[in-house]
């Protein structure tokens, strides 16, 4: 199966750049953690049991501990490789070889996400040595499943943005816009429980809360099993139109493709 071979190769590629794989993560995670720690330390009153949006200070910090892990799993590599391959004509190889372009891209990104899951487990084990995290492994498992489902949804949304490269000269701004919207409405910047309740209800019908907020809340044990299954269901429902739209976009885009750089 080419999928197995491609997965092996992609994993090999990521592992061969292991310093970058870890450095990128550690630097981002540390910066985000330090920022969140000092920000919320100033927001919460000292020596009180105050809660904001249902989070006390400890839980808030735990939430932010998982943000970089889950962001990395869901967003995978933000390397713009899909649009770049359209611009520079590398897409041609996927038209000549009997494989699907988006299929290969999905495989590439999912390899990174799966390795990021392993990275998260290793990092959690390392943190656990110094600071007890009191995590339930079953919750961590389901949280990772939720994050991987979030990855699939985000992949389709991001790929759709990148496929606009068939029509416009630069799609960078579209990608950045999606990234910001997803992070903001997905709860990667602040927990969604800080938003007004009506807005939270509206958000539940969009795919965004299931990208970051829901997987983190599942890991922290804040989501009941029925709610968790419901969120999986919402993701799967969103996947249907996303898949159809992406296919349509790709078919139309390939008609525009001129194979530049060839």
């Amino acid at each position, binding site marked *: *199966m*080419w999928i*197995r*071979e*491609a997965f092996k*190769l992609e994993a*090999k*590629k990521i592992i061969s750049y292991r310093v970058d794989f870890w450095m990128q993560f550690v630097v981002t995670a540390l910066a985000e953690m330090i920022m969140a720690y000092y920000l919320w330390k100033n927001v919460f009153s000292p020596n009180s049991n105050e809660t904001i949006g249902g989070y006390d200070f400890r839980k808030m910090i735990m939430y932010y501990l998982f943000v970089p892990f889950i962001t990395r799993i869901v967003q995978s590599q933000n390397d713009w490789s899909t649009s770049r391959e359209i611009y520079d*004509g*590398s897409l*041609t*190889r996927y*038209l*000549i*070889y*009997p*494989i699907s372009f988006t299929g290969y891209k999905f495989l590439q990104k999912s390899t990174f996400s799966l390795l990021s899951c392993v990275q998260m487990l290793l990092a959690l084990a390392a943190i656990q040595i110094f600071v007890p995290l009191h995590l339930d492994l079953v919750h961590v498992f389901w949280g990772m499943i939720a994050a991987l489902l979030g990855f699939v949804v985000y992949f389709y949304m991001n790929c759709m943005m990148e496929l606009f490269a068939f029509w416009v000269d630069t799609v960078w701004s579209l990608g950045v816009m999606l990234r910001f919207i997803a992070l903001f409405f997905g709860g990667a910047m602040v927990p969604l429980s800080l938003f007004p309740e009506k807005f939270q209800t509206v958000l539940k019908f969009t795919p965004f809360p299931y990208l970051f907020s829901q997987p983190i809340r599942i890991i922290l044990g804040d989501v009941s099993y029925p709610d968790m299954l419901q969120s999986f269901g919402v993701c799967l429902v969103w996947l249907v139109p996303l898949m159809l739209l992406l296919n349509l976009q790709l078919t139309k885009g*390939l*008609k525009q*493709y*001129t*194979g530049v*750089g*060839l």
Partner: protein
Amino acid sequence: MKDHGINTAFLLLATKTYKLVIKPLAMIKVENLSKTFKVHQKAAGLKESIKSLFFRKWIEKKALDNVSFQIRPGELVGLIGANGAGKTTLVKILSGIIHSSGGQVSVLGFNPWDRKNEFRKQISLIMGQKAQLWWDLPAEDCFLLLKEIYEIPNDQYKATLKELVDALDVAHVMNIQIRRLSLGERMKMELIAALLHQPKVVFLDEPTIGLDITAQKSIRKFILEYRKRHKPIMILTSHYMEDIKKLCERILIIKNGELKYDGDLNKILDQYREDKIITVHLDPDKPTTDFEMEKSELVAKENATLKYKVAKGNEGAALTEIFRKLDVVDVKIEEDDIANIIEKLIKREPTGRGL
């Protein structure tokens, strides 16, 4: 009357034979193929840039116009034309990369831009200017991936890989990342990657571009040997006339998107080979001052070596005059260079279907 009847019968027989036997043999059939690109046009300057945000000006550029030809199994056909003539567009359409705007194309019985896997498993495209292999991976890993993509049986994969690696002499660089290989080595790897699944149709788009003479020669030699052994259809585009001369028997000349000539390379060379060059080596001990001839034109002079251009058919008279007027030590007659002839062909718009 009787003769007329025999002629008609012969004509009918020939037509039937063509329709039933020869025509179906064609593995690539192109009929009235056209391709038009829509190009966004924008004048220079900030004002025009802002204007183009709201009002875009599009122009239509005809890349191919009413092109028709057929290619039979085992043929190696050269596509010739100036930059922008439409050669690469034709290759892109035949390999299914881009859609046509009109006309019919059938490659191995498939419509290329349906991009069916059965079709893609029988073709390959080698682009001298564009790497298809994954740059971050060593060639051997790329080939393993291609083995799975093309579902090549293990034994066939091992045998084909060995044959190709030996022929191209690249065993020592198989484990080096593609990005770290020299241009010549990379091209060889691209060739292996394209031939691993033993395609029935191979598109070679400038396979020797940018390579040094040795690498060019070795690639040419490889293509010839491979073709002899496996007999795929090969369609070659190249600006290097040596490639065309050494590899192709049949050429298609394309100019401004139109097929201007389709036929035998030697035939067209004979037809357009108008001049010959006579190189004369003089005796350096017997200085001469009058080099002008009536039957030939002096085109170069360096020390005791002179070059005369003479029209086809006038060689005898020109030589007689040269021997009469000069103290000749040695003389050599050469044909006009193929590159010059092809340039003339492209400029002069030859027409013909020399098949």
